[in-house]
């Protein structure tokens, strides 16, 4: 890691400022987002090692102008001082593109002047590829040797170094930060039965992350072996206690997507009509924001140059706020919350979640489990899907541990697919633990595309859901 803001972007800055000036002469609004994200994903398993660019690696520019009624964007990975006229021509061509469908009438983005630099470096030692490969190899070999049932183990770490610059007539922002995502995967087989377990987390210290990964892999292996005895649960309604990852998944799918306010503009979210109304048990409070927790989505400013926010969404069961990108906020007459995010410089910005979680409560986890008559402790996020207009929800956990009369029976089930009506689920929450964890190892799509890295989590919840 270089430990500093991109030299390349620094060198390009005068040209980009000149481009904003040139476009600003023609258009009421002009901005440039410049990104330079470097990163590596090193993966080791029993048979191979790979060293590839991180999935987040990118280097490019988004030029944005207001044509008087709508916004126009041009994405390219080459802007230099000698060819600014070409960029202006490309933008002009895009503005002039004739279409027969009328435009929305969006107002002009108003920006407060701000000049600021942000930096957050990797904590601790920066390890070389040689050191990382040796450590990962050691984890994999130890894991495979630990039990004959283990047929493969995989350990990986993805490191990223993010530099972004946002320039407009009013704004001059630069940010630099690092993040890494270690991941484990173990495949176990007994006879014809094959099962797997996985885990992952995020950190801004490669050194600490690898140390933690070393502790995590044996647990992943133990779970993979346990899962050899797992069967899917019998469909039905059950009491559940969730681990923080499933709590986060519920927060994310149930209400996170539902309060992305670009969905309000499109009349795609029922939450629009529920502001100030009760939507969950009074035990539930929920937040989102790049500044609300320290995790994978903890940037300093968003992809439209709005500073990181910390938004209260549900307060003691009452829906109190939503999150927004600049364009949605403008159309709704609200202040943007710093949630404008792009999959990459090649994609449009939408309102997106960042670090989303339920706040912790006062119950003790062991007492919550002891109060379950018949149900499951549900753990490890697999995937989920939102339905913000109709408040359907589907959340899949990798496994659940059976509880009967307040005690674990030792039976394990997998996969656990929960579904139902969002309000029913949130209203059914009758205990919230005093634990708290936010896990930053996942990605989130909007619908079925536009993937961005997010974290989610919270305490453990006790609720009643449909499993099937």
């Amino acid at each position, binding site marked *: 890691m270089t430990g500093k803001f991109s030299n*390349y972007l620094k060198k390009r800055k005068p040209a980009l400022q000149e481009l904003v000036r040139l476009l600003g002469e023609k258009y009421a609004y002009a901005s440039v987002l410049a990104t330079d994200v470097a990163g*590596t994903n*090193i993966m080791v*398993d029993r*048979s191979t*090692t*790979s*060293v590839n*660019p991180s999935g987040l*690696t*990118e*280097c*490019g520019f988004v030029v944005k102008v207001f044509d008087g009624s*709508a916004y126009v*964007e*041009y*994405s*390219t*990975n080459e802007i230099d001082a000698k060819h600014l006229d070409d960029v202006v021509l*490309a933008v002009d061509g*895009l503005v002039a*593109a*004739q*279409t*027969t469908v*009328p*435009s929305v009438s*969006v107002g002009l983005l108003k920006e407060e002047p701000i000049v600021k630099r942000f930096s957050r470096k990797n904590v601790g030692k920066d390890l070389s*590829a*040689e050191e990382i*490969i040796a450590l990962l190899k050691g984890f994999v070999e130890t894991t495979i040797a630990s039990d004959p049932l283990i*047929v*493969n183990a995989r350990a990986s770490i993805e490191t990223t170094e993010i530099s972004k610059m946002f320039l407009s007539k009013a704004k001059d922002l630069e940010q630099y930060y690092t993040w890494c995502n270690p991941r484990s995967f173990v495949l176990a*087989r007994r006879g014809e039965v*094959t*099962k*797997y377990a996985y885990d992952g987390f995020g950190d801004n210290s490669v050194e600490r992350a690898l140390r933690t990964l070393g502790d995590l892999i044996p647990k992943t292996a133990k779970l993979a072996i346990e899962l050899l005895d*797992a069967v*899917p649960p019998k*469909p039905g309604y059950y009491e559940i206690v969730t681990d923080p990852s499933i709590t986060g998944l519920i927060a994310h799918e149930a209400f996170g997507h539902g309060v992305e306010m670009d969905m309000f503009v*499109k*009349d*795609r979210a029922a939450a629009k009509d529920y502001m100030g109304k009760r939507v969950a048990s009074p035990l539930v409070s929920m937040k989102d924001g790049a500044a609300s927790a320290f995790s994978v989505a903890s940037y300093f400013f968003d992809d439209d140059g709005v500073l990181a926010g910390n938004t209260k969404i549900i307060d003691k069961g009452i829906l109190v706020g939503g999150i927004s990108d600049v*364009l949605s906020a403008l159309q709704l007459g609200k202040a943007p919350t710093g949630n404008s995010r792009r999959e990459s410089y090649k994609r*449009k910005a939408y309102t997106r979640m960042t670090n989303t979680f339920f706040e912790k409560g006062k119950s003790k986890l062991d007492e919550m489990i002891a109060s379950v008559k018949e149900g499951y402790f549900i753990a490890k996020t697999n*995937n989920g*899907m939102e*339905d913000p207009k*109709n408040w*359907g*929800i*589907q959340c*899949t956990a990798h496994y659940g541990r059976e509880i009967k009369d307040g005690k674990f029976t030792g039976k394990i089930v*997998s996969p656990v*697919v929960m*579904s139902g009506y969002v309000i029913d689920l949130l209203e059914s929450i009758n205990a919230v633990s005093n634990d708290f964890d936010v896990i930053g190892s996942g990605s989130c799509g909007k*619908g*079925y*595309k536009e993937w961005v890295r997010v974290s989610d989590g919270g305490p453990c919840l006790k609720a009643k859901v449909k499993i*099937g």
Partner: protein
Amino acid sequence: MIKQLTAALKANPALSGWLVNETATLSSQAFYVMQKKETTRRVETREYQVTVYHRHGEQNAFVGSSSFAVSRKHSKAELAKKIEEAVFAARFVKNKAFDLVKGEGKRTWKEKPESADPFAIIDEIANAFFAAATPVSRFNALEIFHARQTIRIVNSEGVDDTKTLAKIDVEAIPSHDGPERKVELIRMFTYKKVDPDQVRKDAEAAIADVALRYDARKIENVAKADVILSGDDVEDFLRELVADFSYDGVYRKNTDKKIGDAIQSEIKGDALSIGWTLSSKADAFDRDGVLLAPVRVVEAGKLVSYYGSNQYAQYLGLKPNGVYGTIEAAPGKTTIARMKAKPHLEIIALSGIQIDIYSGYIGGEVRLAVWFDGKNRIPVSGFSFSGNIDKALSDLVLSKETVQGVRYHGPKCILLKGMDVL
């Protein structure tokens, strides 16, 4: 740029081989909100991924590789440094040695481009969608992505292949506002070229489906049902069935299935034949430069061939047949009309099909389905179905009618018997 890259790679004596993937993208995009244009975008990029190979160990038994991205111009010195850093990492990668794909000179494949301006095409599609709207059903959001990509693969062994592919992706959100409530669906379409008739049909079907969701009610007194899947759900199901039979999956021991093993035990319904094919004639090679040809993976319910990349094919001592994007399956003998003659649950929209091949689980939350009880067709919503994959495969019914999409060629519908409904 590719000349500069190859020159820098050739100048590094530590390399035993190299591979450059160049991707040039020209994409025009339009975003509509409440049937009005909100944003237009254009993307013009040229990006590279460079992989360096370094043979090492006794008798060069190992090959280390390391890849990096190049998204901007670099000086000669900067490129040399990036290559050196990649070689440094590759020295610690001890993969079993394999040979890179050998080339046969410069070759080019190209899909015939649409002659119209991309934004004119986008405009035509948007208008076709909006024309399908009714006073109570419309598209609250519509996003259209017109993309043309040219991919060039050059390696140290003489591969120099170029293909140009084009497609149009549409995400449509049909919405229906009624006196009781508002409902929506998410619909995704991919077109290789614009067929106005097909676009119109898709738009009208999306509007009809969302109106049906408005009328949908909870399913009652149905605990078990034969479930009919179509569209992406069929594609996802078939992909999952053969995912572990890649050379990569076999080498990593993801599967214990051997050639000749049954994928379907006790076939009481249709036997499966599944393979991989090219999405179009121009989609001729994979990321390593392996020339693609259709491959049959499952035949008559049995595993007949593995498939996959150059590296893992060599590890298994098999012929590389490449990494594909389009799955194909043979149709059955049952017409959809016959499939639908008996009581069944026809899935129109799921939250997302859930398949765990290791646990034998298939299911999902149903956003819209039609329940046929033998007499009436009743739109239903807000429940889930689930079942066991092995049992479903035994009784599987494939439709006689087929679809030819970009990512899937095969039966239009499949029927899974005896699924649990909750």
